């Protein structure tokens, strides 16, 4: 013990922590912990992982975390939440370490964060890609190549075989271009009918079958490749077409006129000599012929239906395959469906040859049915597009054009096929009759010439004729014109003076009319000629009638001419046969003698009786020529 010891003051460290030192030096102490708080704080410091003897051997670091987990999994569970607690504890440890590290790194004094250098991306092996592409291309190319080889081989084969047979599939393709085909089970069925595909309402199962022909390739033909008719068709076909029985053969509609007969229908028996064999034709034409048979059957069906429904004065008769419709009394139109069926041995029987079959009317029937089909199938797109689809174009325009009620009624009228055909047939007959009459008259009458000109603008139910009556050499003086409109059952004739006459189908009426016109021409021409020569017409009459003669055609007319001086009178009478009677009179009379009743001299001016001229002995080419000569001679003075 020394006496120089220093006294050291010992004081306990500050028990309360300093929370804050104010700017004026005042210290604020954090409140001291209570006993429980102290205990909690101390307990928190305990690392429960360290309890137990194992704790001595290991180090608690991040690296030993796995060991911890392994050891903990082998340790028997002390209580049910043990594993949960362990895991939570580990998580807490990790997060604490991480937060410590980040805090320290933020300070940048002891730990600094450096970016981890990235590995450079692995360079793509360019050569690998090229090789891969080349391989895939080679695979595709090989596929295409093998296909091309196959095509080339088949083409070479086809070229080798081209002269003899055609391939079945190529033929089938060509067939499919023209007809509708479909495959049913194992067979190929085609459709020939018009039903629903082109507006027909007539149902008919027009199916045909297509098969391969392997056993008889020589007999079947295939249609020619080019439309050149000169190229010989030598190809044989690989497919065979089987047409149903009722459509085999050749059918057509025959239309002709016949006079009224007592028997309703007649039939002819055929001898086998008239049979002939239809040559084998290629499948295209065979199918076309079969379709034509179907079409003709439809035409006939439609006409027969209408013939039964239509009301007409003389009812139409449908017998077997004929329809008899009467056009005029005494003339009938016969429409008959002639179907040349094939008999069993391949020979066909010829129907009796039809006299004077009218091809124009047959064509008309075909056209009418197609028109009917088109009307059923074809809808006009209305303008504007929002208007209703059904009505025709004329009906759609009826509103904006403000059409009258009469026009509406006209629009709704429509004629059936049979009516239209009958109308055309009537017009044909009437036109022929008119032609005959005019030709006969033109050849018969030479004095006024008759020239007939048919207008080229006409329709199946209308024609127009211009008939000119004139005298040869004097057509500048006067020419009589008649226009004849030929309709279906009547003629309308318009003469030069504007009178319109409607004549019926009787041909004698037309003859009568033309003869009247001829007669009229004579007298009118004489009047014009007289005017040219200075003579005057003092009286004329155009309708003198035919008198007591037997012939009732034609008319007689007459006129009286007086010379320029006034001393000669000519009286002309022209009768229906174009015979003329000309008489001449003279005023003053030469043979005037005053008698008991008539005393004065002045009555000699009344003129004496007419003396007839011998017309056959007159010099002149025709009637007008002779008249000219007569008038000239009477005018000149030395004939006094």
């Amino acid at each position, binding site marked *: 013990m020394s006496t120089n010891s220093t006294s050291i003051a010992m004081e306990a460290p500050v028990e309360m922590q300093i929370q804050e030192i104010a700017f004026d030096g005042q210290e604020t102490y954090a409140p001291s912990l209570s006993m429980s708080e102290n205990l909690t704080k101390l307990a928190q410091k305990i690392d429960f992982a360290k309890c137990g003897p194992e704790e001595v051997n290991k180090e608690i670091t991040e690296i030993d975390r796995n060991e911890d987990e392994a050891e903990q999994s082998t340790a028997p569970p002390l209580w049910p939440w043990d594993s949960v607690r362990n895991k939570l504890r580990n998580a807490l440890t990790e997060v604490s370490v991480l937060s410590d590290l980040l805090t320290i790194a933020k300070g940048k004094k002891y730990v600094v964060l450096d970016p981890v250098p990235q590995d450079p991306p692995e360079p793509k092996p360019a050569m690998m890609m090229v090789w891969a592409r080349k391989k895939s291309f080679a695979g595709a190319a090989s596929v295409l190549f093998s296909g091309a080889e196959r095509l080339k081989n088949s083409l070479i084969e086809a070229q080798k075989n081209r002269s003899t047979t055609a391939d079945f599939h190529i033929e089938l393709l060509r067939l499919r271009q023209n007809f509708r085909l479909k495959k049913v089970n194992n067979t190929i069925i085609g459709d020939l009918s018009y039903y629903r595909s082109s507006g027909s309402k007539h149902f008919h199962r027009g199916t045909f079958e297509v098969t391969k022909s392997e056993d008889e390739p020589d007999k079947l033909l295939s249609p020619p490749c080019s439309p050149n008719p000169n190229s010989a068709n030598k190809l044989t076909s690989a497919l065979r077409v089987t047409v149903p029985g009722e459509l085999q053969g050749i059918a057509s509609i025959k239309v002709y006129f016949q006079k009224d007969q007592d028997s309703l229908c007649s039939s002819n028996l055929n001898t086998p000599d008239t049979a002939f064999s239809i040559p084998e034709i290629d499948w295209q034409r065979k199918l076309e012929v079969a379709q034509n048979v179907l079409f003709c059957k439809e035409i006939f069906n439609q006409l027969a239906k209408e013939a039964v429904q239509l009301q007409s004065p003389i009812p139409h008769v449908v017998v077997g395959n004929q329809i008899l419709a009467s056009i005029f009394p005494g003339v009938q139109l016969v429409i008959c469906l002639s179907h040349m069926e094939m008999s069993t041995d391949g020979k066909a029987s010829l129907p009796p040859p039809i006299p004077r079959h009218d091809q124009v009317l047959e064509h008309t029937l075909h056209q009418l049915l197609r028109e009917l089909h088109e009307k059923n199938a074809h809808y006009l797109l209305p303008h504007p597009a929002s*208007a209703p689809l059904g009505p025709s174009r004329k*009906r*759609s325009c*009826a*509103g*904006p*054009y*403000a*059409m*009258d*009620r009469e026009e*509406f009624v006209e629009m709704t009228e429509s004629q059936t096929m049979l009516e239209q055909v009958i109308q055309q047939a009537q017009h044909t007959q009437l036109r022929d009759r008119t032609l005959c009459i005019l030709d006969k008259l033109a050849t018969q009458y030479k004095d006024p010439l008759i020239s007939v000109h048919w207008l080229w603008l006409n329709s199946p139910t209308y024609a127009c004729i211009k008939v000119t009556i004139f005298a040869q050499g004097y057509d500048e003086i006067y020419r009589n014109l008649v226009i004849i409109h030929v309709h279906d059952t009547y003629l309308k004739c318009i003469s030069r003076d504007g009178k319109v006459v409607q004549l019926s189908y009787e041909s004698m009426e037309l003859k009568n009319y033309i003869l009247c016109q001829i007669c009229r021409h004579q007298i009118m021409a004489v009047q014009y000629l007289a005017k040219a020569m200075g003579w005057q017409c003092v009286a004329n009459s155009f309708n003198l009638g035919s008198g007591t003669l037997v012939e009732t055609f034609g008319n007689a007319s007459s006129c009286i001419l007086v010379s320029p001086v006034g001393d000669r009178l000519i009286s002309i009478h022209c009768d229906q046969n174009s015979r003329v009677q000309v008489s001449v009179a003279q005023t003053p009379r030469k043979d005037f003698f005053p008698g008991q009743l008539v005393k004065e001299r002045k009555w000699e001016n009344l003129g004496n009786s007419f003396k007839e001229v011998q017309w056959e002995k007159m010099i002149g080419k025709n009637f007008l020529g002779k008249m000219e000569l007569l008038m000239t001679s009477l005018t000149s003075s030395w004939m006094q």
Partner: protein
Amino acid sequence: MGVTILLSYPVPENKTGPQTVDLLIKRIGALGAVQSGQFLVDCETFSSGPTMGGPPRTVHVLHNSEQPAAVFALLESPGPPPKTVPLVADGLFDLLMLKMSSIYASKKQTRMEARGTRFEIADFLVKIGTVTMSSNFKGVLVEVEYRPCFIAGNCWELMREFMQSFLGSVVQNTPPPYFQVHNRLNDVYQPLDTIQQYLDHFASYRKVAGL
């Protein structure tokens, strides 16, 4: 469509409308006319609402039973210069006007009708009708059409003579005022001209208050 002249026949003081019509029918029957159905000409007026802006415009929609598929519409716009735009349309135009009811409102009480019988004599067509405005009798209108001709100037004299034969001195010697403007006497006659004549007469009937 031939030339049509529309005439308003004044009802005499001591007679009613139907009696006048009967008298005219008797006269025309005496000339040899044949009755051939009824006729109806009606006119509905639409007026544009304030949404359109500007002075209100009117659209007259007329129907004539003689042209059953057509609807006639005349738009009168008073804005300077005042003009009338005519239109001949299909029956769908009525539906169009229905759709536009928010813009063009229909004045139901001014709906005018001319209804009566039509007679045919040779080339003439005579219609004698009573004009009513929402069931109120307004007057008698006589329409005479000469079917073969469609230029008014060519047949005015003929028509005047024919009309004077059964209408008497009501018919003036000069053509009606409709034909005296714009050289209408020498123009081709259209169904729209008939409708415009009807419209003029209906307008004059509307002005006559309370009959």
